[in-house]
């Protein structure tokens, strides 16, 4: 029995190390639960709606929950990202339409410094509200791993559609227009 003690300890230590490694790798994986729910025809509640995020260029804070009752086009972007630059005019154009229909685009900067984000907002003539997610807590709860990503949130605060790459106006019209006719 005592002869098995040392090999047993070594095996247990190796097992513990493998578990730590597996846990570490698994926790790095992307969360695709939103897509899985949408594939089942279920709109999942948007996560972390009460998390107060700093408004870009201001000391104020804003929560996604504050937009309840509106259709929200939540766009995660960064100033250094070329696809984000390409879709910015589409989103600004959409904002002008949405503002008349009780809806809004909400920009969330991710992996970007505030001065670059502000310069981007100025260059692209963005008029919709933009908040910053400094440590990525908010966007990671949506399964975001990069930019740009866009989430369409209905008037009840549920995610109705996702695009994890550059959007186009055709997709926006297709997913947003039916939601505008819905009531909270």
């Amino acid at each position, binding site marked *: 029995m005592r002869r098995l003690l040392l090999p047993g300890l070594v095996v247990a230590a190796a097992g513990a190390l493998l578990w730590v490694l597996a846990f570490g790798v698994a926790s790095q994986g992307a969360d695709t639960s939103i897509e899985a729910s949408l594939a089942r025809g279920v709109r999942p509640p948007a996560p972390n709606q009460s998390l107060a995020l700093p408004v870009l260029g201001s000391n104020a804070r804003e929560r996604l929950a504050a937009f309840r009752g509106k259709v929200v086009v939540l766009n995660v972007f*960064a100033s250094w990202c070329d696809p984000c630059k390409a879709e910015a005019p589409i989103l600004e154009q959409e904002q002008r339409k949405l503002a008349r229909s009780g809806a809004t685009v909400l920009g969330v900067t991710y992996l970007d410094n505030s001065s670059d984000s502000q310069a981007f907002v100025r260059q692209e003539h963005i008029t919709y509200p933009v908040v910053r997610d400094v440590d990525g807590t908010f966007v990671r709860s949506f399964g975001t791993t990069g930019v740009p990503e866009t989430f369409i949130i209905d008037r009840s605060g549920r995610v109705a559609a996702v695009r994890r790459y550059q959007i186009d106006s055709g997709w926006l019209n297709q997913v947003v227009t039916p939601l505008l006719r819905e009531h909270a």
Partner: protein
Amino acid sequence: MTRVGALLAVLILALSASAAGASAATPRASLTDIENDVMCVACREPLAVSQSPQANSERAFIKALIAQGQTKPEIERALVAQYGPAVLGKPPAHGFNLTVYVLPPAILLVGIIVLFVTLPRWRARERAARTATPRLDPADARRVEEDLAQFTG
């Protein structure tokens, strides 16, 4: 005595020189130094080796802060404020990241304890095996006795 005195003088000189160096103004931060200690947060690799657009943006941010005369710790704090704690090469010591700091010394400690316990036993066993007289079983002993009896008889 003179040799000891000279040695002491050299030691005192060396110590005073290093103290003077330490008390001098904090050296200017350099991009190369900071790049080695921070991450490109989008590509999850050290900034020093990354050439992605996000890394270039981060580098420009660091250069601007260096130009303002900020020190390395100040720049690192500014980077955390802009990009979150993931920007630091060394992860913060809480949650799962704690394993990075706890596991290596724990493994080393366990290894030392195992060696401390097992090495004396192995050595004792080896010593005993070297000094012990081999014992013959009765059948072999009888055969040896018979063989010897033939030669001596």
